């Protein structure tokens, strides 16, 4: 009986390469064509948990924002926040549809690209549709979209969790202009611009709350790998933006599996670089 703890016998790599190259002269084996942007390590990780890549899929959306909304006002710039939310929603719906059409059960390693312009907001998603090996297609509504890498997806599944979808939230808020007297008074002072600080806090809370609402709507218990982008925009000097997105997860069977990582000590010597700045 073989011991599963022992590593598999390593194949003779040179013989494998000779066999592989010789097979190019044969008639190709019949198989489904697949396309993926995964690395070989990611594909091996996927296979180790019984999943396979299917197809490269994408979803894009562009929503208009009336340019006048950035200049003057108070509170949230609702048109911009709505455009951002809609662009995300439409792009996700399109990548769901493409993935389901390709026979995928989910999309991993999704590259999220977003751009905010004075007149429009763009969202572009690109990732690889994956499925349990040989599984039958599912409806678009059952497909999950995740920006986790295939490696992280495999680790998540091994520990008993499942990704449910991509959650996002964004908020654009005016930073009220200071009174002329305050501007003049504070010109020579080191002073916190509380209008900007407060606007940033307001945008952050609203955006994070929206992301959490999306997670709850997907029946998730949390969001992992949250990314944030914040700050002013070059075309709107008195507005701040905050956007966040991440992958919604929950326990698959109500039990977290402890993966008990093995401690390893590397015997490699650390590389010491010569630091010219230490010369006296």
């Amino acid at each position, binding site marked *: 009986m073989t011991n*599963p703890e022992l590593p598999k016998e390593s*194949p003779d*790599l*040179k013989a494998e*390469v*000779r*066999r*592989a*190259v010789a097979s*190019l*002269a044969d008639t*190709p*084996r*019949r*198989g*489904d*064509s697949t*396309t*993926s*942007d*995964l*690395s*070989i*390590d990611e*594909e*091996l*990780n996927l*296979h*180790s*948990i*019984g999943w396979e890549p299917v197809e*490269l899929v994408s979803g894009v*959306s*562009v*929503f*208009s*924002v*009336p*340019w*006048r*909304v950035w200049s003057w*006002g108070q509170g949230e710039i609702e*048109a911009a926040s*709505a455009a951002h939310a*809609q*662009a995300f929603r*439409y792009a996700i719906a399109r990548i769901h549809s493409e993935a389901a059409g390709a026979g995928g059960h989910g999309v991993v390693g999704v590259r999220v690209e977003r751009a905010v312009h004075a*007149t*429009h907001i763009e969202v*572009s998603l*690109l990732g690889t549709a994956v499925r349990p090996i040989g599984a039958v297609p599912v409806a678009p509504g059952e497909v999950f979209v995740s920006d986790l890498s295939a490696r992280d997806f495999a680790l998540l599944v091994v520990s008993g969790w499942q990704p449910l979808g991509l959650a996002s939230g964004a908020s654009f808020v005016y930073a009220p202009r200071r009174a002329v007297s305050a501007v003049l008074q504070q010109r020579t002072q080191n002073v916190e611009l509380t209008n900007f600080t407060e606007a940033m806090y307001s945008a952050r809370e609203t955006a994070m709350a929206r992301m959490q609402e999306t997670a709850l709507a997907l029946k998730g218990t949390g969001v992992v790998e949250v990314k944030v982008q914040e700050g002013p925009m070059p075309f709107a000097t008195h507005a701040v933006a905050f956007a966040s997105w991440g992958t919604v997860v929950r326990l698959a069977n109500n039990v977290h599996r402890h*993966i*008990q*990582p*093995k*401690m*390893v*000590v*590397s015997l490699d010597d*650390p590389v010491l670089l010569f630091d010219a700045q230490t010369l006296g």
Partner: protein
Amino acid sequence: MGEPANDLPEAAERRFSAGAFSSGLSVPDFAACLEMGLEPVGFVQGFCAMQWGWYGMSGYQRGMSPYGGTAGGYVENYQCPHGMRSVDHRSWGQNYQQPWVEKAWTDGFASAYSRMLEEATALGADGVVGVVDTFAHLSEEGVVEFHIHGTAVRVQDAPPTVLWPWTTYLAGQRLAKIFEAGYVPVCIVAAISSVRVWAYCVTEYLMSRGGVSAWSMDAEVTEIEQIVSARTAAREIVRAHARGVVGGDALHGVDLAIREREFEQGDLEIECLLRGNRLRRFKDFDPLPPPQPTVRLS
């Protein structure tokens, strides 16, 4: 991709017969190739400079072909909902594929690629590993130089190949994992799509002012359908081109680069460049056991 070319310079023939090999591999990749029984025989290259006849069409050409489109390619027409307003009013719009741009790019890439293969064939190589491709604009007139190079290798103790050499962007341990996973590289794949957008009045207005009710503070936001449609089409076309090359094999490690140029408000050119490794399965997959998580103490 294509077959080897047949125009190897005489100087290159003399260099190849000199005896010493050259290689673009790093030392770890070189060592990994030797472990796989792949013996480097030479650094092989192919060049091609191409000019685009209609590259970067300017605004004066607008109006030449409102509904003509491109034969067999993607075309979508957009009709102004407002009726005749003025000569400046964009009463029609069109998205269309630019096959001449795609063909010029594909021809340039294929020529450089086949010249690299010719050098590899002259060296008696079975394959080319660690392929690198670069594209450089030589001038503002739409001239692009294609340069493709890699390291030609011979498989030790194997009979001479009956086909032209196989190629891959991979080298070293990543290539070794490909073989161990049951795949053999067939060739590199590169495909491009080019879609042009002539904005009609609605798209122009949305892209320049952001809304039909631009003077109202509570204007509704709306999706800019013509732009979304063009971007979606460009991504679909490039994947369809690649699928046409791959046949029943796998396209692996794909990189999709997207470039957009805006000429005027809403007038865009969208180019998607897709590159990857075409792999063929030569044995059934033998999955690894679930990887053992580790925490590194250092």
